[in-house]
């Protein structure tokens, strides 16, 4: 439903005047840049974009854009985004948050957002820690990791966001890193253009509480592009196989893109609305449903 010419906007048109609260060197700066570029490439004006987030360092991100933003409560970006998209299907709806937001407190919402398949793009800035509360164990923290809540080392296995979301049946799953902003921005643009629920996991380093091997410098050294590995993004099985490397390798790119995307929730809703609209009594006569002759 693009209503504007693709060249009309520059990345800076999506940059707000708010100064990010992030630590210098935070990976989220790169994610923000990539989002500005992707939105400029898409070309929808800022007022037609709604950016919904939860709580956490990364969830501050809507405020740093000129789009309509909603920095809501912890873990609930997806329900709010889905309600908004159903109410205003013409909008471009983005949801974002951290790994705690998406895979701990809000983890129950992800499979349902996936199965409903409305046209929403969900960006998780996965830094394997709770940064805003100062460095506790997060759902994607590696087993054995030492943090303030696991001083003797974590005893738990981490969540694998890619594997989860692929297994939930998402039609579009990708992973990027701010170590490669052009790659990340292209991936986000593609996710937004994809008609249906799209998920982008970004390995976005925490400079303050992250480990050395999780920083941008390390990413540059270890990242491998799926494209270069001969990966077939039309195969969910291959994607599931590649996704198993989460936590040990850094494979970036589109893991899975459904070659024949199923209808979105929004399109099914519109069909139903259109097919039933003729049966509507005028609103002011709705009580006729209860008439007793």
């Amino acid at each position, binding site marked *: 439903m693009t209503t504007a010419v693709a060249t009309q906007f520059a990345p800076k048109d999506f940059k707000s005047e*708010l100064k990010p609260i992030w630590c210098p060197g935070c990976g989220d700066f790169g994610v923000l840049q990539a989002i500005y570029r992707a939105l400029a490439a898409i070309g929808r004006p800022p007022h037609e974009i709604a950016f919904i987030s939860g709580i956490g360092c990364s969830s501050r991100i809507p405020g740093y854009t*000129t789009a309509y933003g909603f*920095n*809501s409560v912890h873990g609930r970006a997806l329900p709010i985004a889905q309600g908004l998209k*159903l109410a205003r299907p013409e909008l471009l709806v983005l949801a974002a948050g951290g790994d705690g937001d998406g895979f701990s407190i809000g983890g129950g919402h992800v499979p349902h957002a996936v199965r409903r398949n409305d046209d929403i793009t969900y960006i998780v800035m996965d830094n394997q820690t709770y940064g805003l509360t100062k460095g506790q164990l997060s759902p994607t923290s590696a087993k054995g990791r030492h943090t303030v809540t696991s001083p003797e080392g974590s005893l738990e296995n981490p969540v694998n966001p890619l594997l989860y979301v692929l297994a939930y049946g998402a039609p579009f799953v990708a992973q990027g890193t701010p170590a490669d902003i052009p790659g990340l921005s292209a991936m986000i643009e593609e996710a937004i253009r994809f008609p249906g629920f799209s998920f982008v996991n970004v390995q976005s380093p925490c400079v303050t509480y992250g480990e050395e091997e999780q920083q941008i410098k390390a990413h540059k050294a270890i990242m491998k592009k799926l494209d270069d590995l001969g990966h077939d993004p039309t195969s969910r099985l291959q994607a599931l196989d590649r996704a198993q490397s989460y936590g040990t390798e850094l494979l970036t790119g589109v893991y899975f893109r459904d070659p024949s995307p199923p209808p979105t929730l929004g399109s099914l809703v519109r069909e139903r609305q259109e097919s039933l609209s003729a049966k509507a009594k005028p*609103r002011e*006569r709705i009580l006729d*449903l209860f008439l*007793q002759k």
Partner: protein
Amino acid sequence: MIRDLVIGMAGSGGDGIVSAGESLVSACASEGYHAMMTKSFGSQIRGGESSCRVRIATCPVLNPGGALDVAVALNWEDFLKFGAELPVNGDTVVLYEEKTGVAPDAIPLVGVSPAEVFAVPFGDMARKAIGNEKGKNSVVLGLIAGWFGIGRESILAGIRKKFARKGEELVQANERAFQLGVEYAQANPLKTSRLMEEPTRSGTKLLTDGNDICAAAAIFAGCEFFGGYPITPSTEIMQFFTREVWKYGGSVLQAEDEIAGIGAAVGASFGGKKAMTATSGPGMSLKSEIIGLASIAELPLVIVNVQRGGPSTGMPTKPEQADLFQAVFSAHGDVVRPVLAPTCVSDTFDVTVEAFNIAEHYQTPVIILSDQEIAQRKEVIDVIDTSAFTLVERQRPTAAEMNPYVRFRMTPSGISPISHPGMKGGNYLGAGIEHNEHGDPTASGRIHQQMNEKRIRKFDRLKRRDDLFSIEGDAEAPFALVSWGSTAGVCREALSLARAKGLRVKLLIPKLLFPVNEGLYRRFFTGVKAGLVVEQSYLGQLYRVLRMTLDVPSGVTSFCRSGANPFAPAEIVRKLQDHALSLQQREADVRQPVE
């Protein structure tokens, strides 16, 4: 001739007790009677006990009534489980299944000898008519038609309609069962005839319950989105939306949990659409955080809590009025949230439309406290003139206010024009985080103070709306009743009974429970010497909220008890008479000379 008839029936889940009640109430609507039916179940889906009460009258029915005029026990074990919900007294006609083997003078009703007792072979009659015992409910209907003269043809029409889909054979079988009931009544007349007076025909009626009319009111008010999760006893609201809302270009989301349900509704409201969620106690507990979000983000939202017994799972199928504290005080922070309560099926429509108007005007979540009784009871009500209602839309920014747009602008009213995604120039950041006028996050104590002041000040006008209260009775009366929700209907009847006994009483029914209209209560309590705040909760929550906010006269006390123990009008009158006596005693004491 009688003008008011209260029938209570109980049986096990498969006996069709509720279905018989529905046929009866629908027949009453066709005949032009006023009627109300309440259902009560155990929590089981099948095989548990179920019951219903049907009250039929020639004048409007205000509540399910007190003691039964007719008690029908298809088996005693199930009947007795309902205790106070199906009270029997010396005027009651009791019918019970003969096969229970209990002698009429040995029925297990402690401490009463009912006016008339019949051991009826319901099962045998059904077997004779249908070949199995499934038609017991049709026999019951025949008995009621025969003894009380209620619309035989209308009941038969209802039976035909109900069984039409299942084939002519079953229709005829149930007609035979009904006829056997009628014949039994003719062969065994009541000692005192109790035929119902003919209804005064007053035009077409609506037959519905509190949940359905609530959802219909929402759609009438322009609600285009519902997000929710199934929970007893509110689920029928969501079900109505799933049938109807598409026709109006809206949508409904059955969410994965209560939090997602209200989250989606907040999202739709952020998108500029009128939105609703509905739930019951446990769901309200889960939704609290997002209710707070809607308050700070100043988003209109209507939340229905169909109250049931609590805390925790409590009693899912029983009514209670114990969630007022939660409505007023839950969700953290300094917040004022409007709380409204309907008192019957018909005014659930008014209250729901009002809730949307308040939500939109004040940009706030509004809680409707319905309860299981109102929500699930069927009432025959007069047609509602929808053209008498005004619908309010949220105040959107004008072109001048968009240049530049300041979402949370400090205005004299505290209400700031609100844009929504899609409006060019209205772009802003909504947030659960404290923010300045522009919506930018802040941790400034000064701004936090100003914003709290704005968000609370904006309700000043709402607090002065006297039209959200009804005051009935003798304006100068020294005795006062205050009641809300489904209990208010009992007090309405108590008021007329008390006045008929010469007591000078008035009754205040608030539809707006919070914020408290202090001026109105003060005026109402002026000159009041004694009274009762009547409500179905152990703690007496409205009484306590009032005492927190204003000086309630010391003679006004709380008359309250836990849910599933319904009040009867007569006991409220007795309580008032006690008050009157002790007041006279006190006055006499004052006049005694001091030694």
